[in-house]
């Protein structure tokens, strides 16, 4: 998995930690190996886990190393919990069972929340966002394994199963309206997990924290004197960023054609336009900052798919959401609510 955002710039807290390397009573407290004492006496704890097929890491600053370590562990636990509930790669996850059997009774409340949000986003975006695109994903994966591109007929057949209105979501039951329909939450679950993780940190008194999941970042309360900035990966140039974003308490998510491509020319990749069954032809990358992780994560997909005017209109429906786009020719456009430092 290629990384799509970097924690860069004046990340003073972390830089200081790297310089000082003063380890705070780790042995006594049983904190994990990533605990360091900051110049102001507080403790920086780092922890990481593998979830959503990528590395999710958390840096948290607190007064007590043991409590901070517990908070990060709890946050990572919640992330892993969402992953094992919503992954499409395992048949025994709730999503795996729904896809196999077409119906799921007594769905987990987290799953219901994510599905309800997904349907709302589908409605607001006129179907430019759709969790039922999984048949397209399966088709393209199978064709890649066979070393070919899918035919227009095959795409049309898979596309006929894509229909968010046929997805029934109630707290008691989730059902797919048509045989062969399948969903994927790869476009929102990670953002939702980030929301839960940041909640867990806040509940345990951690105000100063940074979550990094490779394509999604989040920060706790803004520290005016110490802005944490995040760089958005350039879709074509390794180790270059198209913009740096000063995190202001919002969540930042990115999508790009380079991350999981089905063709060498990056024309076919993991973002599908549900209306055509193909990947959007114009853009190479989109990043969204929004009030929640689920909004930021979910919005990147319609940002990739919709034409600019409609994308801006959709953004306006979400408080404090901003986006930055880069097209395949390298031109960058930012919306007005992208944080300072963008573009």
């Amino acid at each position, binding site marked *: 998995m290629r*990384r799509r955002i*970097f*924690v*860069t*710039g004046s*990340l003073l807290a*972390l*830089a200081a930690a*790297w310089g000082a*390397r003063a*380890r705070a009573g*780790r*042995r006594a407290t*049983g904190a*994990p*190996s*990533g605990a*360091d004492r900051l110049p102001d006496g507080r403790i920086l704890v*780092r*922890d*990481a*886990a*593998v979830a959503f097929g990528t*590395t999710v*890491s958390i*840096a948290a600053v607190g007064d007590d190393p043991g409590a901070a370590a517990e908070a990060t*562990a709890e946050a*990572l636990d919640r992330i*892993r919990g969402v992953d*094992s509930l919503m992954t499409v*790669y*395992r*048949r025994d996850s709730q999503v795996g*069972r729904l896809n*196999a*059997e077409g119906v799921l009774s007594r769905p987990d409340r987290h799953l219901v929340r994510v599905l309800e949000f997904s349907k709302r986003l589908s409605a607001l975006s006129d179907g430019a966002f759709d969790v039922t695109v999984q048949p397209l994903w399966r088709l393209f994966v199978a064709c890649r394994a066979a070393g070919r591109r899918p035919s227009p007929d095959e795409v049309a057949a898979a596309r006929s199963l894509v229909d968010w209105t046929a997805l029934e979501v109630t707290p008691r039951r989730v059902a797919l309206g048509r045989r062969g329909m399948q969903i994927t939450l790869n476009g929102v679950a990670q953002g939702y997990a980030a929301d839960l993780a940041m909640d867990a940190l806040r509940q345990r008194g951690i105000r100063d924290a940074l979550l*990094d999941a490779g394509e999604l970042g989040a920060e706790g309360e803004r520290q005016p004197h110490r802005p944490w900035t995040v*760089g958005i990966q350039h879709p074509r140039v390794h180790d270059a960023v198209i913009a740096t974003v000063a995190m202001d308490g919002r969540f930042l998510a990115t999508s790009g054609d380079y991350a999981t491509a089905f063709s060498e020319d990056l024309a076919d990749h993991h973002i599908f336009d549900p209306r055509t069954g193909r990947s959007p032809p114009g853009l190479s990358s989109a990043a969204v900052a929004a009030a929640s992780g689920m909004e930021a994560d979910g919005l990147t997909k319609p940002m990739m798919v919709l034409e600019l005017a409609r994308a801006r209109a959709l953004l306006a429906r979400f408080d404090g959401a901003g986006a930055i786009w880069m097209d395949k020719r390298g031109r960058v456009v930012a919306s007005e609510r992208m944080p300072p430092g963008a573009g």
Partner: protein
Amino acid sequence: MARAERPGRTAPALLALGLFLLLPPPARAGLLTREELGRRFPAPYLVAERDKEVPVWPIFKQSGPPHHTVDLVGYVFESADLAPVPGFSGTPVDLLVVLNVNGEFLDVAVLSHHEPVFLGGVGEEPLRAFLGQYQGLSLKQNITVGSGTARARHAGATNVYLDGIAKATASLRIINQSVLSAALKVARARLGFSGGRDPDLIAHVRTDLFEPRTFPQLVSAGLVRHLRLRNRDLEKAFAGSEGAGLDPVAIEKPDETFCDLYAGMATVPTVGRNLLADAAWKLMNARTQEGDHVLLVMARGRCRIVSESFQRNTVPDLLSLRQEGLPVEMRDLDLDAPLKPAGQPDFDQAMAFRVIFQAGLDPGRPMQLSARVTRSKGIVYPERFSRDLVLDYQVPERFVVPAAEDQKTWVATWRDRWPEIAVLVAALAFLTVLLARQSRLVAQARSLRWFRPAFLAFTLLFVGWYAQGQLSIVNAVALLQASIAWRSWAFFLYDPMTAILSAYTVATAVAWGRGTFCGWLCPFGALQELAALLARLARLPRLRLSHAADARLKWVKYAVLLAILLAAVVSARWSDPLVEVEPFKTAITMHFRRSWAAVAYAAGTVLVGVVFFKAFCRYLCPLGALLAVLGHLRRWDWLARRVECGQPCQTCRSRCEYQAIDARGGIDYTECFQCMECVAIYNDDAQCAPRLLEKRGKRWVTTGSPPGGEDLVVLGTKR
């Protein structure tokens, strides 16, 4: 389902008992904690919490400015958690292994070992040096503990030879096996080396399926694969390299065969028993454990399976096996003259190689066997050029039990088997109505005479042999074990026949007693009863135990049940051999196609059941005992009786073949099989003595009071 989970346990009880005593102890919990690993891998490394499914710890590396990133380096694990290969001391060597995300070893270190040679002998320092050699090697290479000559001849990018330690070779091989098997599992489970499938779900060889086959038939069935290479083909393989043209024979006779290479999985009975000499087959089974694979490789012509300098019992020097791009270690099983003396082509070489079960080879997926052909140039310091001949092998589908992943979800299973389910449900509904309205069924004694054998035939043929719906104590044990381990009962749903029959049986046992199942729905019970019926038609004698002996023997089945349940609570390894007391698997599930001892036991049970009517059901059957216990919940006596029953009339009691009617005329529902014989008598004017007399306006007179349990009632009439 529970039956399906234990494919090919063909050994009868005693043999199984003997075997499991020889098995290594179960894997013990690992030694390390996250804190300990944190100390071993300080910053910038970061050891994460242990994975919940695979016993590995992800290890990350934090990078400093300008980009602050945390990236996955690889996984840390203990070999004993994943591949506890017993060492010379009997205890597995436990190694700490660090594997990076590309499948390369970052580090291997000893955590604990009891290998005598390193404890006293040469000491631990050489062992540390040996393990240091793994650093930087890749799982994609063939890693072998090498002797000097093999190393000199075959070392290269794909073949790596580790320096051995004198006097410790055997222990080092075990250590190498542990490292590689554990790392392979991690690579498959967490590094995507298994193409996204669940690596624990591998197919198993069907050890219960044997078909006599000749060698050509085995080849055409794909059980033995053949690779024929002409001199021309080999020359072509070397073409363009310095190895071309070095073999004069190949150039002179391009169309002659250079080599015929054959390979077959000898652990598939149809391959092994048809090809291996009897002694070799026995030896192979003695030297392998359940789940191991043995690959039989045969060659004819100018190629070789192993070189002249090959030492028996080691990893072959010219052959290698791969699956999904990863090498799988094989080791010579050291079978002398493994093949049957006649019946197959004359081979120049034939050898059997063992792959331990810990390696996770999937017989149901393609594997590649490479044989190395080397040509040399020059005499004093010859230059060597090699090519690999690759033979693709895969056990045909029919001979393996597919990985559970390939099995469908239970909904789909039910959908697929709907005709069988419909027939079964209809039959159960029919049976329920009949039993509920018994008088209808028995209105004419004649209708019961044909109906009961007909239903039993249905139970035996359809429920038992065709739909494989024999309920067994194994089902109960599996449920018990699943409950203890807090696992879901969902596995039960994957076998609709068992699920439906179990639900019906539990419901009827509580409502009516065990008899509904035991007397009508148990295929093995039906088999015994039909056999007894035939014996009666042939006028063979039937014996009846005295009531006293019968009463005592009836308790044996409860003891059997208790033993099985206790064993099940302790471990599956204890209960597995005990449940072999049931001949169901042999007689019904496997259609009597099992080892001779199991078949003899099952056939013996049927024969005994002919002489002493259904003796197994009444005295030994643990499932019957369990249902009898459940039957104690029964709240009403639903089989009709009269006041005269028992006092004074003893007709039913003496006619009851199950000896389930006591001297006072009461029915012992824990022993009653609901055969309806007494109900038929009850309803029949010609058979029921009180009824007969009533009709003639007469009544009973007893000439002596019946002391409990004696058949001494005298029937008389009063004028």
